[in-house]
Protein backbone atom coordinates (compact mmCIF):
# COMPACT_ATOMS: atom_id res chain seq x y z
CA UNK A 1 0.00 0.00 0.00
CA UNK A 2 1.32 3.47 -0.87
CA UNK A 3 2.30 5.80 1.94
CA UNK A 4 -0.02 8.81 2.25
CA UNK A 5 1.35 12.01 0.67
CA UNK A 6 0.52 13.89 3.91
CA UNK A 7 3.58 12.23 5.42
CA UNK A 8 5.85 14.45 3.35
CA UNK A 9 4.07 17.53 4.74
CA UNK A 10 4.65 16.30 8.29
CA UNK A 11 8.39 15.90 7.69
CA UNK A 12 8.55 19.17 5.78
CA UNK A 13 6.84 21.00 8.68
CA UNK A 14 9.27 19.32 11.09
CA UNK A 15 12.24 20.52 9.03
CA UNK A 16 10.82 24.06 8.85
CA UNK A 17 10.48 24.09 12.64
CA UNK A 18 14.02 22.76 13.13
CA UNK A 19 15.47 25.39 10.81
CA UNK A 20 13.42 28.23 12.33
CA UNK A 21 14.31 27.37 15.92
CA UNK A 22 17.95 26.49 15.42
CA UNK A 23 18.90 29.15 12.85
CA UNK A 24 16.37 31.91 13.58
CA UNK A 25 15.64 32.12 9.82
CA UNK A 26 12.31 31.40 8.16
CA UNK A 27 12.53 28.78 5.41
CA UNK A 28 9.43 28.63 3.19
CA UNK A 29 8.11 25.71 1.10
CA UNK A 30 8.87 25.88 -2.63
CA UNK A 31 7.86 23.48 -5.38
CA UNK A 32 10.31 20.86 -6.64
CA UNK A 33 10.36 18.39 -9.49
CA UNK A 34 9.72 14.85 -8.25
CA UNK A 35 12.79 12.65 -8.39
CA UNK A 36 15.18 15.58 -8.50
CA UNK A 37 18.89 14.67 -8.27
CA UNK A 38 20.31 14.79 -4.77
CA UNK A 39 22.41 17.81 -3.90
CA UNK A 40 26.03 17.65 -2.79
CA UNK A 41 25.40 16.87 0.89
CA UNK A 42 22.68 14.52 2.11
CA UNK A 43 21.96 13.58 5.71
CA UNK A 44 19.96 10.38 5.89
CA UNK A 45 18.25 8.30 8.54
CA UNK A 46 16.38 5.03 8.49
CA UNK A 47 12.96 5.41 10.12
CA UNK A 48 12.59 2.11 11.97
CA UNK A 49 9.00 1.22 12.68
CA UNK A 50 6.11 -0.98 11.67
CA UNK A 51 6.53 0.67 8.27
CA UNK A 52 10.20 1.29 7.57
CA UNK A 53 11.12 4.51 5.82
CA UNK A 54 14.13 6.54 4.81
CA UNK A 55 14.52 10.27 5.35
CA UNK A 56 17.04 12.31 3.38
CA UNK A 57 17.68 16.00 3.82
CA UNK A 58 19.94 17.32 1.13
CA UNK A 59 21.38 20.64 0.05
CA UNK A 60 24.30 22.20 -1.73
CA UNK A 61 27.46 22.66 0.35
CA UNK A 62 26.83 26.41 0.30
CA UNK A 63 23.29 26.01 1.68
CA UNK A 64 24.46 23.60 4.41
CA UNK A 65 27.33 25.99 5.25
CA UNK A 66 24.76 28.78 5.59
CA UNK A 67 22.72 26.67 8.03
CA UNK A 68 25.84 25.98 10.13
CA UNK A 69 26.76 29.66 10.21
CA UNK A 70 23.24 30.65 11.25
CA UNK A 71 23.16 27.93 13.93
CA UNK A 72 26.52 28.64 15.51
CA UNK A 73 27.40 32.20 14.47
CA UNK A 74 30.72 30.86 13.14
CA UNK A 75 32.00 32.03 9.75
CA UNK A 76 34.90 29.63 9.62
CA UNK A 77 33.24 26.42 8.41
CA UNK A 78 35.12 23.19 7.76
CA UNK A 79 34.05 20.12 5.73
CA UNK A 80 33.53 18.30 9.04
CA UNK A 81 31.19 21.10 10.20
CA UNK A 82 29.10 20.72 7.02
CA UNK A 83 28.86 16.95 7.52
CA UNK A 84 27.98 17.41 11.19
CA UNK A 85 25.26 19.94 10.30
CA UNK A 86 23.66 17.54 7.80
CA UNK A 87 23.70 14.82 10.47
CA UNK A 88 22.19 17.03 13.16
CA UNK A 89 19.50 18.53 10.91
CA UNK A 90 18.28 15.10 9.82
CA UNK A 91 18.44 13.92 13.45
CA UNK A 92 16.40 16.86 14.79
CA UNK A 93 13.91 16.68 11.91
CA UNK A 94 13.34 12.98 12.48
CA UNK A 95 12.98 13.66 16.23
CA UNK A 96 10.37 16.34 15.62
CA UNK A 97 8.48 14.17 13.10
CA UNK A 98 8.61 11.24 15.52
CA UNK A 99 6.65 13.30 18.05
CA UNK A 100 4.07 14.22 15.38
CA UNK A 101 3.66 10.59 14.23
CA UNK A 102 3.63 8.96 17.67
CA UNK A 103 0.76 6.48 17.99
CA UNK A 104 0.11 6.34 14.23
CA UNK A 105 0.84 3.50 11.77
CA UNK A 106 3.95 5.47 10.81
CA UNK A 107 5.40 5.78 14.34
CA UNK A 108 9.14 5.08 14.25
CA UNK A 109 12.34 5.03 16.30
CA UNK A 110 15.36 7.19 15.60
CA UNK A 111 18.43 5.43 14.21
CA UNK A 112 22.01 6.51 13.58
CA UNK A 113 22.18 9.22 10.90
CA UNK A 114 24.57 8.98 7.99
CA UNK A 115 25.86 11.62 5.57
CA UNK A 116 26.71 11.10 1.93
CA UNK A 117 28.59 13.71 -0.11
CA UNK A 118 29.19 14.11 -3.81
CA UNK A 119 27.78 16.05 -6.76
CA UNK A 120 25.07 14.71 -9.06
CA UNK A 121 23.95 11.78 -6.92
CA UNK A 122 20.63 10.10 -7.72
CA UNK A 123 18.40 7.92 -5.61
CA UNK A 124 16.77 4.90 -7.20
CA UNK A 125 13.92 3.10 -5.45
CA UNK A 126 12.21 -0.16 -6.30
CA UNK A 127 8.93 -0.01 -8.22
CA UNK A 128 5.81 0.78 -6.18
CA UNK A 129 7.90 2.37 -3.41
CA UNK A 130 6.53 5.77 -2.37
CA UNK A 131 9.04 8.60 -2.87
CA UNK A 132 8.12 12.16 -1.88
CA UNK A 133 10.10 15.33 -2.55
CA UNK A 134 9.76 18.77 -0.97
CA UNK A 135 12.00 21.78 -0.46
CA UNK A 136 12.31 24.85 1.74
CA UNK A 137 13.96 28.09 0.73
CA UNK A 138 15.44 31.03 2.58
CA UNK A 139 17.09 33.92 0.71
CA UNK A 140 17.92 31.70 -2.27
CA UNK A 141 19.24 28.89 -0.08
CA UNK A 142 17.40 25.59 -0.72
CA UNK A 143 17.08 22.63 1.64
CA UNK A 144 15.45 19.52 0.15
CA UNK A 145 13.63 16.61 1.75
CA UNK A 146 13.26 13.21 0.18
CA UNK A 147 11.10 10.66 1.97
CA UNK A 148 10.97 7.01 0.93
CA UNK A 149 8.49 4.40 2.20
Amino acid at each position, binding site marked *: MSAPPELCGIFSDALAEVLAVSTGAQYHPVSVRPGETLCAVAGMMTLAGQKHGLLLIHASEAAMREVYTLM*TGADDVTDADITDTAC*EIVNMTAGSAKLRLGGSDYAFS*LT*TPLVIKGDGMSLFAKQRVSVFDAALECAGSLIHIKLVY
Partner: protein
Amino acid sequence: MKLLIVDDSSAIRKIIKAAADVLHMESIEACDGVEALEKVTESYESIDLVLLDWNMPEMSGYDVLVALKADEKYRHIPVMMVTTEGQKTSIVAAVKAGAGNYLTKPFSVEELESKILECIGGGSV
Protein backbone atom coordinates in the same frame (compact mmCIF):
# COMPACT_ATOMS: atom_id res chain seq x y z
CA MET B 1 30.73 27.34 37.46
CA LYS B 2 31.73 24.58 35.07
CA LEU B 3 29.56 22.70 32.53
CA LEU B 4 30.33 19.36 30.94
CA ILE B 5 28.81 19.40 27.44
CA VAL B 6 28.26 15.90 26.05
CA ASP B 7 27.09 15.65 22.44
CA ASP B 8 28.38 13.87 19.34
CA SER B 9 27.51 16.94 17.25
CA SER B 10 30.27 19.56 17.17
CA ALA B 11 27.68 22.18 16.09
CA ILE B 12 25.54 21.51 19.16
CA ARG B 13 28.61 21.57 21.44
CA LYS B 14 29.61 24.92 19.91
CA ILE B 15 26.10 26.38 20.45
CA ILE B 16 26.04 25.24 24.10
CA LYS B 17 29.60 26.47 24.70
CA ALA B 18 28.63 29.89 23.32
CA ALA B 19 25.68 29.99 25.74
CA ALA B 20 28.00 29.03 28.61
CA ASP B 21 30.36 31.84 27.61
CA VAL B 22 27.48 34.34 27.66
CA LEU B 23 26.57 33.11 31.15
CA HIS B 24 30.24 33.43 32.22
CA MET B 25 30.53 29.69 32.80
CA GLU B 26 33.52 27.56 32.03
CA SER B 27 32.86 24.49 29.89
CA ILE B 28 34.52 21.22 28.94
CA GLU B 29 33.34 18.89 26.19
CA ALA B 30 32.91 15.19 25.46
CA CYS B 31 31.74 13.73 22.16
CA ASP B 32 30.33 10.42 23.42
CA GLY B 33 29.23 8.67 26.59
CA VAL B 34 32.54 6.95 27.26
CA GLU B 35 34.47 10.22 27.02
CA ALA B 36 31.84 11.85 29.24
CA LEU B 37 32.48 9.35 32.04
CA GLU B 38 36.23 9.89 31.65
CA LYS B 39 35.77 13.66 32.01
CA VAL B 40 33.57 13.19 35.06
CA THR B 41 36.14 10.88 36.65
CA GLU B 42 38.88 13.46 36.02
CA SER B 43 36.97 16.57 37.09
CA TYR B 44 33.87 15.60 39.10
CA GLU B 45 34.77 17.92 41.97
CA SER B 46 34.59 20.97 39.71
CA ILE B 47 31.67 20.07 37.39
CA ASP B 48 28.47 21.90 38.32
CA LEU B 49 26.18 20.63 35.55
CA VAL B 50 26.25 17.96 32.84
CA LEU B 51 24.34 18.62 29.60
CA LEU B 52 23.80 15.22 28.07
CA ASP B 53 22.69 14.15 24.60
CA TRP B 54 20.76 10.86 24.48
CA ASN B 55 21.67 9.17 21.18
CA MET B 56 25.43 8.93 20.90
CA PRO B 57 27.95 6.34 19.71
CA GLU B 58 29.79 4.07 22.17
CA MET B 59 27.48 4.73 25.13
CA SER B 60 24.10 6.46 25.20
CA GLY B 61 23.40 9.52 27.30
CA TYR B 62 20.79 7.56 29.21
CA ASP B 63 23.40 4.95 30.17
CA VAL B 64 25.76 7.75 31.25
CA LEU B 65 22.98 9.22 33.39
CA VAL B 66 22.30 5.86 35.05
CA ALA B 67 26.03 5.34 35.67
CA LEU B 68 26.44 8.81 37.22
CA LYS B 69 23.45 8.43 39.51
CA ALA B 70 24.58 4.95 40.60
CA ASP B 71 27.90 6.26 41.87
CA GLU B 72 27.99 8.06 45.20
CA LYS B 73 30.88 10.25 44.07
CA TYR B 74 28.99 11.63 41.06
CA ARG B 75 25.30 11.46 41.89
CA HIS B 76 25.22 15.01 43.31
CA ILE B 77 26.09 16.51 39.89
CA PRO B 78 22.91 17.84 38.23
CA VAL B 79 22.21 16.46 34.75
CA MET B 80 20.10 18.02 32.01
CA MET B 81 19.23 15.86 29.00
CA VAL B 82 19.52 17.80 25.71
CA THR B 83 18.07 15.52 23.05
CA THR B 84 15.85 14.93 20.04
CA GLU B 85 14.02 12.24 22.05
CA GLY B 86 11.08 14.47 22.98
CA GLN B 87 8.31 11.97 23.71
CA LYS B 88 6.84 11.72 27.20
CA THR B 89 8.12 8.18 27.81
CA SER B 90 11.73 9.30 27.31
CA ILE B 91 11.29 12.35 29.55
CA VAL B 92 9.75 10.22 32.30
CA ALA B 93 12.51 7.60 31.97
CA ALA B 94 15.22 10.27 32.23
CA VAL B 95 13.62 11.97 35.22
CA LYS B 96 13.18 8.59 36.96
CA ALA B 97 16.86 7.88 36.31
CA GLY B 98 17.80 11.16 37.98
CA ALA B 99 17.85 13.88 35.30
CA GLY B 100 16.98 17.21 36.88
CA ASN B 101 15.92 18.87 33.65
CA TYR B 102 15.16 18.10 30.00
CA LEU B 103 15.54 20.16 26.84
CA THR B 104 14.29 18.90 23.49
CA LYS B 105 16.15 19.71 20.28
CA PRO B 106 15.74 21.94 18.40
CA PHE B 107 16.07 24.65 21.02
CA SER B 108 16.62 28.39 20.87
CA VAL B 109 19.62 29.95 22.59
CA GLU B 110 17.22 31.74 24.96
CA GLU B 111 15.58 28.43 25.99
CA LEU B 112 18.99 26.87 26.51
CA GLU B 113 20.30 29.71 28.67
CA SER B 114 17.11 29.75 30.73
CA LYS B 115 17.26 25.97 31.33
CA ILE B 116 20.93 26.14 32.34
CA LEU B 117 20.14 28.86 34.86
CA GLU B 118 17.20 26.79 36.17
CA CYS B 119 19.51 23.82 36.71
CA ILE B 120 22.19 25.83 38.44
CA GLY B 121 19.53 27.43 40.62
CA GLY B 122 18.04 24.03 41.50
CA GLY B 123 15.00 24.15 39.16
CA SER B 124 13.35 21.00 37.86
CA VAL B 125 11.37 19.82 34.77
